[in-house]
């Protein structure tokens, strides 16, 4: 199923507010062999993917998109951070489709997720290319 080119530029609704706990930071740090900072209040650098991944999963499940995660490969990922995530932050992710390209039976979906605190402070922008094998569901 080819994706609708009209998706380019579309901005999806923000994810539900996610409150970052010290326990979640510790769990993420232990899984990734990451050092803890600030008494465990400062999250590892890739922690914003928790919010960005939720935004991507919601996009893939959209009516008219309907892509199964197992048919998706992560093509690239980049973060631009204003500051690290800290325990006590409540964050939302707003995903926008930057580009859509079909090549060699693949859909290349360029996404950007703006991660803000509920107070409106910019924490991080996560850029990801999702590669969908168009032969799959």
């Amino acid at each position, binding site marked *: 199923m080819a994706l609708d080119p009209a998706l380019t530029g579309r901005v999806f609704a923000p994810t539900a507010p996610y409150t970052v706990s010290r326990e*979640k930071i510790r*769990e*993420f740090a*232990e*899984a*990734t*062999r*990451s*050092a803890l*900072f600030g008494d465990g209040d*400062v999250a*590892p*650098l*890739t922690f914003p*993917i*928790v919010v960005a*991944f*939720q935004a991507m*999963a919601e996009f893939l499940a959209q009516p008219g998109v309907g892509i199964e*995660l*197992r*048919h*998706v*490969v*992560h*093509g*690239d*990922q*980049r*973060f*631009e*951070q204003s*500051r*690290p995530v800290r325990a006590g932050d409540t964050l939302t992710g707003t995903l926008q489709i930057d580009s859509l390209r079909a090549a060699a039976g693949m859909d290349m979906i360029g996404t950007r997720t703006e991660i803000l605190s509920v107070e409106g402070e910019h924490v991080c922008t996560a*850029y990801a290319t999702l590669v969908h*094998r168009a032969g*799959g569901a």
Partner: protein
Amino acid sequence: MSWDVGHEFEPQSYAVTRADLIRYAGASGDFNPIHWSDRVATSVGLPGVVAHGMYTLALVGQALVAWVGDPARVESFGARFTKPVVVPDDDEGTWVDVSGRVTGVEDGLASVELTVTNAGTKVLGMTKATVRC
């Protein structure tokens, strides 16, 4: 800390086992079965269970923090996921090695280029970071 162009950081090496991937799935919320089920991984053409690209990038993040000391100094970082890191179902797992060097310094920002390999094969492309120095 040396921010001279050409400075090479101390290479970092990380073990990756199946148990790490299970932990990471829970910690990150990414339960894509290609990261824990050989059956699903092989059904989509992979040689077996592969690490989350974001697991490998998390190791890059940890290497950067080991080098620069404070995560707040990292302004941006990212990579292309060019080759899968296949993680065998045994007790040893596999290894990811991360090296990096300063390629430029301008306006208080250092550009760092990283090389990320698994068993001697480059697994990430265009692995770059910008760090406040």
